[in-house]
């Protein structure tokens, strides 16, 4: 190796080392910025000396008071409401979404393209508008306010068929020759689905269950509209939101933090546990849209 090329080589190496160091600094900074709010929320949930918002993070006095106090509020009720909603939605929505996406991916029928286009156009309407009428109808059925949970499940599940994109993208990647081989052997379409496609679809099933389960924990608009004013029918998002309104925040700020931690921890753990499937779903299906 000649001397100049040696120098160039070492120069390259040095510049790579510098750029890598910069990237490490950047990544550490990003990690801190992304984690700091959650770090703060956890710390403040243990603050005992005051219940309102303060300009410092580390509590002067530590304790579990905020967590204990949660149980004398409606929080457990909200938690149960949300949990029931999430479980039911996860199960029913998965069935509906998979039916829809499987059909649109695997079958070729006359109305397929018009149907997909129709749903695309339908999705351009702000869905929020429909809650005015849905609220009145659900109210007539007695599924609002204190009984909001079943009403909410119904609303979430009923129109979930429109979110078929990601799982359709997944089904598109399973080779069609598998179906055809089974059909030649005399299997019905239903048997093809049950015996061949479903066993291959574990990742997308888990992805759909996971996203459907996580949705209700964060939903705010519909839940608030349908449970309007009745604490017994609220979900965690609506209940905790009300603790941060100007007349409540001084009394309940630290309790909001502890409530937030209790909601976030199980959901996050479940998510991290199933992270692999989520990443697969997002990178595989979301882009094809």
């Amino acid at each position, binding site marked *: 190796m000649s001397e100049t090329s040696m120098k160039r080589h070492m120069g390259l190496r040095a510049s790579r080392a510098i750029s890598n160091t910069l990237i490490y600094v950047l990544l550490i900074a*990003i990690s801190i910025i992304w984690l700091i709010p959650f770090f703060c929320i956890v710390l403040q949930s243990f603050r005992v000396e005051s219940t309102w918002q303060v300009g410092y993070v580390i509590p002067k006095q530590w304790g579990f008071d905020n967590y204990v106090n949660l149980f004398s509020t409606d929080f457990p009720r909200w938690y149960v409401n949300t949990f029931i909603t999430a479980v039911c939605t996860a199960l029913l929505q998965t069935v509906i979404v998979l039916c829809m996406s499987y059909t649109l991916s695997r079958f070729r029928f006359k109305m397929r393209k018009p149907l997909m286009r129709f749903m695309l156009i339908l999705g351009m309407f702000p869905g929020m*508008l429909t809650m005015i009428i849905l609220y009145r109808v659900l109210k007539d059925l007695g599924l609002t306010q204190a009984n909001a949970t079943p009403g909410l499940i119904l609303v979430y599940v009923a129109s979930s068929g429109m979110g078929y994109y990601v799982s359709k993208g997944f089904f598109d990647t399973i080779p069609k020759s598998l179906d055809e081989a089974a059909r030649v052997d005399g299997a019905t379409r239903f048997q093809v689905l049950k015996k061949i496609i479903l066993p291959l679809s574990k990742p997308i099933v888990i992805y759909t269950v996971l996203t459907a389960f996580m949705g209700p924990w964060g939903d705010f608009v519909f839940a608030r509209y349908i449970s309007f004013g009745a604490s017994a029918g609220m979900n965690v998002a609506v209940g905790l939101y009300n603790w941060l309104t100007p007349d409540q925040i001084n009394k309940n700020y630290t309790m909001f933090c502890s409530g937030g931690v209790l909601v976030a921890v199980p959901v996050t753990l479940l998510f991290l546990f199933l992270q692999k499937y989520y990443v697969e779903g997002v990178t595989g299906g979301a*882009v094809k849209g």
Partner: protein
Amino acid sequence: MKAYSDLEFLRLNKWQKMLYKLGRFFSSIPKGVAQLFIKLWGLIKNVFLAIGREAKDIVSTFIHGDWKTKVSYLVMGFGCLARGQILRGLLFLLFEIVFIGYMILAGAYWLSMMPSLGKVGPSEVYDEIFDTYVTTYNDNSFKILLYSVLTIFFIIAFIYTWRINIRQNKIAEKILASGKKLKSAKDDLRSVVDDQFHKTLLALPLTGIIVFTVLPIFFMVLVAFTNYDGAHDGYASNLFTWVGLDNFNTMLSWSSAGGTQSYAATFGEILAWTLIWAFFATFTNYFLGMFVAMAINKKGINLKKLWRTILVMTIAIPQFISLLYVSKMFAKDGIVNGFLMGMGWIDKALPFWEDATWARITVIVVNIWIGIPYLMLIATGILMNIPADLYESARIDGANPWQQYTKITLPYMLFITGPYLLTSFTGNMNNFNVIYLLTGGAPTNPAASSASGSVGYTDLLITWLFKITTGAESKYYLASVVGILVFIVVALISLIVYNVLPSIKNEEDFQ
């Protein structure tokens, strides 16, 4: 604009090339829009042609059909029953009976009330025995509108089924004429899980979508042409009725009342901010997310999994917690201001949510914090698919990292994520959660407050719609008008992008 040949194009310098491309882009918009209308016209024409074909077929089936077929025009399923397809025949017949029964018992009444939406409102009658006024409720505009819409949907379903019934007869005649046997009930049942399996699978999801999305949207579009609001709820207070295009006139008129802005001005301001927001929210996330993904993917960076997991974790935490908390962090007495003042860097709290410009920028910045992890995941998936030898050969040709990025990475990403960018743009236009949970639309715009609800500088059309609905006057009709306008804007943007983009894309392809 004049189109250059490839050779002429190559002779231009960098700036001329860019200008040329920009010019081509904008000059192709009118063509794209024109093509759009041609396509729409073609669509409408096709619908009418199809209806014409159907009508012709119905008539010719009647003329050429045997008596069983002819009776089926009146008694649905008669042909099937007469030819031994009992199950099908009974289903058709049952549907017809239910339909006629419904129309006689209820449907006709609702349809007859539809033009007026109710004649007699609630009335107060003096009750002598109890010495009080008793309110009696009479017509209910809301129910009338709802059930007449349902009836219309039912009639459409009936016509469709009737058409199928006729086609069945035609097919059955043909099969019998060729000497084959008709399908038995057992065959029909088997087809539910076989030939017709797609219909079985779609039945449930589509019913849900029709009942809980299509019907409500249809209903709400109609509401835009009524005066349905808190004071005219159609039952307890006053009936509501059709007002034609009045609400659209209100929304789009520039005349203002009481020293405050007109609706059109408010709408224009909010629309402008909505578009600015959607643009920045989409592209800041897109490029920064891609950048973070590239940083993590870079050769020689360790602990890739850890960095990714930290970011991905933040997706899992329900947005209302993180958004509400971050919103309070930036409050006047929040942690951020507390920290900055504690360090002695500022001596007065920064107006993160109090000043219009500050609030708008803060919203966009916080949205980056929300959006990057998701974009990072998407970008990682795509970046890993770019063939490594592309970079290899670029390096051998002496391309620096920036050139590699603009010539390989970016075009590849844009090519794959084009549709995603569009959906993410329109999704951001309707990004209710981020705005509502962070600012609630604040700071308030005093000039615009005449429009229902208090409109703020960070309000998007969608949060405005929500405020109109939940505001003191609950002007549902106005919310509905805003909703329709949002739809028109989103649809126009999507259509233009879909129609214009491919021509641009093809130009990029050969580079």
